[in-house]
């Protein structure tokens, strides 16, 4: 009964979404408080019905109800409970339901928290959110129903891909979707404002918190994904410019651009058209990601193997949603107010430059992602676009953006003082260059480009700290005065510093790890050793272990330093999952401060003299922790900004006049 109640609730949510769209649109157009109120109620009801449906799917996974086709295809009775639950969103159908849940959740949040929004804008935004819900829910009900039943239930399920049975990946999709789909609110607000024909500071004030929330969640989602790729796939890397990674990175880049342009629109009333365009583009890129992952057009470790019919349907949905948005934008944009004026040297101009660079970078990533598809369609040739392309195109754009970044927050609105900013920043530049030179002289082998990368990282961190120092009048006023200023400083300012410094931390980690990673791979018999930079790696034992749903060979690998002292003992595994007969490598990582010693064990083979041997690949990944810490700081920065009262006023019920 519970599963069928879930199936009914899914259909009910589709029909309630239709009601939400109709009631809110008519309510807004006719200025009817009752109809707009009913539309808000429908948004809450849609979310409630979908919660019931999602709970029913989780129940089916937890109880291993193989009469549900999705459970039979993606679960198994031997699977640990966490992965049974995570299996609910591990498949195409289940993840579509998660997408719909998040989409309707954001609609309900707009209905519940949106009292400070002008009523017509709110009604139209809820109507648009409802229309998006209708599209995605109809697709889920008719083409990807996760609660579809089997009349003859199999005895056992086919289980979830073992690579996906991992804690980071259990939580990666919910964060990723909360980010992806969070941009739907921004899209809805943008479309609603275009219908109204009014894009002004009030509108930007509304867009900003949703953008911040979506962008921060997407940052966490992407970081979890990169971390998973790093320690689960066993390739030693963390980003592969895989099409599906790019699909999540594009909305992130556009979201970052939108975050900044929305500030200009809010503070100065400028760039309204551009901000609305970015708001439409962010969700369009999210939908493009969904299409790329699910249509079967791309081959990727992440891609769901889904038939082309569903892909065509998704393409049509994306075409309808994005087409409607950009068509209306095309009609309305010429009549939008151009807003406040500003000089070429001003904070606005710095943000415009940031936006141009981020948008160009997004276009480059889009080209790199779609180029193989275009070539295949044109002349049937299969090509792949990887790191060399992105290093030559994307990286220079980002370096340019990073070079300008610390100056932006120091410039005044409207008319900035370039010389004054340069006077403040030269010390940061000098320090960063000095640290880069030291790295060039000390770290072996000498690498000029990577040392340059470190200069950029230190420049970003130093710039962020300097800006905070300026705000607090650090060393220029008394300690008491600086403390008073720190207490009075809006959280948004702290968030900006954290996010910009986080970016610097990431650049440091990425430059160092990519340039100075040490790798060694050799087939080792028991007690065999191989050198790994300043360490020695010895395979001391191999034991057989039995997990809840796998059998494994576990290597005991001892890592020693130059004087022979044990640094750590790693236990990489080669796991065999009988269900599905799949083999995976379980990486063992020894964390040494910011560095990782990373060990992977291959399958057993015949070594010298017929003795069994195992291919042991080991890496020293210096400063790799910074790669994950940096984005985490950025996400925390976003959340701290979101907690700023000035921003929160855009979401919560109004409690009084803002103070700053």
């Amino acid at each position, binding site marked *: 009964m519970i599963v069928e109640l879930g199936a009914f609730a899914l259909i*009910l949510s589709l*029909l309630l979404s239709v009601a939400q769209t109709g009631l809110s649109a008519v309510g807004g157009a006719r200025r009817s408080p009752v*109809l707009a*109120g*009913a539309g808000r109620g429908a948004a809450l009801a849609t979310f409630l019905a979908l919660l019931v449906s999602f709970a029913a799917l989780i129940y089916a996974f937890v109880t291993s109800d193989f009469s549900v086709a999705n459970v039979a295809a993606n679960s198994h009775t031997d699977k640990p409970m966490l992965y049974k639950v995570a299996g609910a969103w591990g498949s195409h159908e289940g993840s579509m339901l998660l997408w719909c849940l998040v989409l309707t959740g954001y609609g309900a949040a707009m209905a519940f928290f949106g009292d*400070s929004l002008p*009523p017509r804008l709110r009604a139209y935004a809820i109507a648009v959110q409802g229309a998006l819900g209708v599209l995605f829910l109809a697709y889920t009900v008719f083409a990807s129903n996760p609660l579809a039943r089997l009349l003859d239930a199999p005895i056992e399920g086919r289980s979830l891909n073992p690579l996906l049975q991992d804690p980071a990946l259990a939580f990666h999709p919910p964060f990723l979707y909360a980010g992806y789909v969070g941009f739907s609110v921004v899209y809805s607000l943008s479309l609603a404002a275009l219908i109204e024909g009014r894009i002004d500071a009030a509108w930007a004030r509304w867009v900003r918190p949703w953008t911040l929330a979506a962008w921060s969640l997407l940052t966490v989602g992407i970081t979890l994904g990169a971390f998973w790729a790093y320690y689960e796939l066993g390739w030693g890397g963390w980003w592969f410019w895989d099409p599906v990674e790019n699909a999540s990175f594009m909305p992130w880049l556009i979201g970052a651009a939108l975050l900044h342009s929305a500030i200009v629109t809010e503070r100065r009333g400028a760039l309204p058209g551009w901000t609305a365009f970015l708001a439409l583009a962010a969700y369009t890129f999210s939908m493009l990601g969904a299409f790329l992952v699910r249509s079967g057009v791309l081959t990727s470790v992440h891609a769901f193997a889904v038939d082309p019919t569903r892909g065509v349907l998704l393409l049509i949905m994306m075409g309808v949603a994005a087409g409607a948005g950009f068509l209306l934008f095309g009609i309305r944009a010429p009549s939008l107010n151009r807003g406040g004026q500003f000089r070429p040297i001003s904070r606005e101009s710095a943000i415009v430059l940031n936006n141009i660079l981020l948008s160009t970078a997004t276009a480059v990533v889009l080209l790199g992602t779609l180029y193989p598809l275009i070539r295949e369609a044109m002349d049937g040739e299969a090509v792949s676009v990887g790191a060399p392309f992105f290093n030559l195109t994307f990286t220079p754009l980002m370096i340019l953006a990073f070079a300008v970044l610390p100056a932006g927050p120091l410039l*005044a609105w409207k008319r900035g003082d370039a010389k004054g900013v340069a006077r403040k920043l030269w010390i940061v530049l000098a320090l960063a260059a000095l640290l880069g030179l030291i790295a060039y002289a000390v770290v072996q082998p000498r690498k000029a480009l990577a040392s340059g990368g470190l200069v950029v990282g230190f420049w970003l961190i130093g710039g962020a700290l300097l800006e905070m120092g300026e705000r607090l009048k650090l060393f220029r006023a008394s300690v008491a005065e600086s403390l008073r200023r720190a207490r009075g400083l809006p959280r948004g300012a702290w968030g900006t510093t954290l996010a910009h410094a986080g970016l610097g931390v990431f650049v440091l980690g990425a430059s160092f790890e990519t340039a100075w990673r040490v790798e060694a791979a050799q087939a080792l018999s028991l007690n065999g050793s191989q050198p790994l930079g300043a360490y020695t790696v010895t395979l001391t034992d191999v034991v057989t272990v039995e997990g809840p749903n796998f059998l494994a060979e576990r290597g005991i690998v001892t890592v020693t330093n130059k004087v022979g002292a044990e640094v750590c003992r790693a236990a990489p595994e080669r796991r065999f999952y009988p269900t599905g007969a799949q083999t995976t490598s379980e990486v063992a990582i020894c964390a040494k401060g910011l560095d990782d010693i990373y060990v992977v064990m291959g399958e057993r083979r015949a070594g010298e003299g017929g003795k069994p041997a195992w291919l042991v690949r080991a890496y020293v990944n210096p400063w790799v922790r910074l790669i994950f810490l940096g984005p985490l700081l950025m996400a925390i920065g976003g959340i701290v900004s979101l907690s700023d009262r000035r921003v929160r006023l855009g979401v919560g019920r109004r409690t009084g006049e803002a103070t700053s």
Partner: protein
Amino acid sequence: MIAFWIAAAGLSVVTAGLVLREAARARPVDDADTRLEPHRRRLAEVERLAQDGLLAEDELKAARAEAGRSLLAAAEQSETWPRDGAGPRKVAVAAVGLACALAAGLYIVVGRPGLPDQPFTQRVAAWRAADPATLDPGKIAAVLEGVAAERPNDPEPLVFMAKARAAAGDMAGAEQALRKAVRIAPKRADIWSLLGETFVIEAKGQIGSDAKLAFGEALKADPADVRARYYLARARIAEGDVAGGLADWRGLLAGLAPNAPGRESLAAEIALVQASGKLPGAEPAAEANPQVQGMIAGMVDGLAQRLKQSPDDPDGWVRLVRAYAVLGETTKRDAALATATALFKDQPKVMSALRQAADTPAQAKTTTP
């Protein structure tokens, strides 16, 4: 079914209630506050910057003027929403009522209202209560998994579970069960040799190091273990020591009772290897595994017994005839076909299915002693 519809109706009422509650709480609105607030805030910020000495006099004037202009523009754009009459309320009730009714209608078309939940534990409980002869090996394995969990120190359920899994074609699952069983009873030669045989089947007839290790353990526990001796001798032949392997086989044959199962096939195999100097190319297939064969034979006997007691089961007879045909038991197959023909001669569909089942080709059988 009734409980489902009550729950569905309950959910519809709650969601409809949410819609109507929000509609009922709606009040006439004046959006001036929401429209003006950000502009007021901007004006306040300009004043604060001026206070902090961050704006020059002319900049302050310009900023004030700009903020003031936008405040006025926003004030002109503000609008009021009047109180609604009865019409919109009726529309809201109709819309939500229609949504719920259409949802019920659509669900009847695409859903399966009568289909109950089928949690795994409930299904296993039902199989456990059923006559084992009616269950296929996969279900038997699922039941035995529960029994094994109830008796964690008893290897028997695990051994039977392994046999059932093997019969269902799940050799990896069989291996897993036998690994657990040898941990519980490390002195049981029969379990070690079964585990070894499972490795051999998984390796498509190759006797690898894992299998040798398992057979070695079996011989440590019981030097006379027939299965382990058979396979280790076979491994010697496969590795080129034909004479040594044959000698081991002959020794094994000499020790077997005259009526021991598999004695004849071992003698035939010895003759074959002696003549050709190598093992025949055929490798023991999973379905030819003696354990699997024994398992299937037991199930077929169970089915025959059941049909004897309640013969009015055309599907059962078709399965029985097919099973005998697959096992190569032609006499039993013909006897079952004759009995079934007498019972169902008036039902052409059943007769056609029976004839098809009888024509199923038998599988080649190689058994170990």
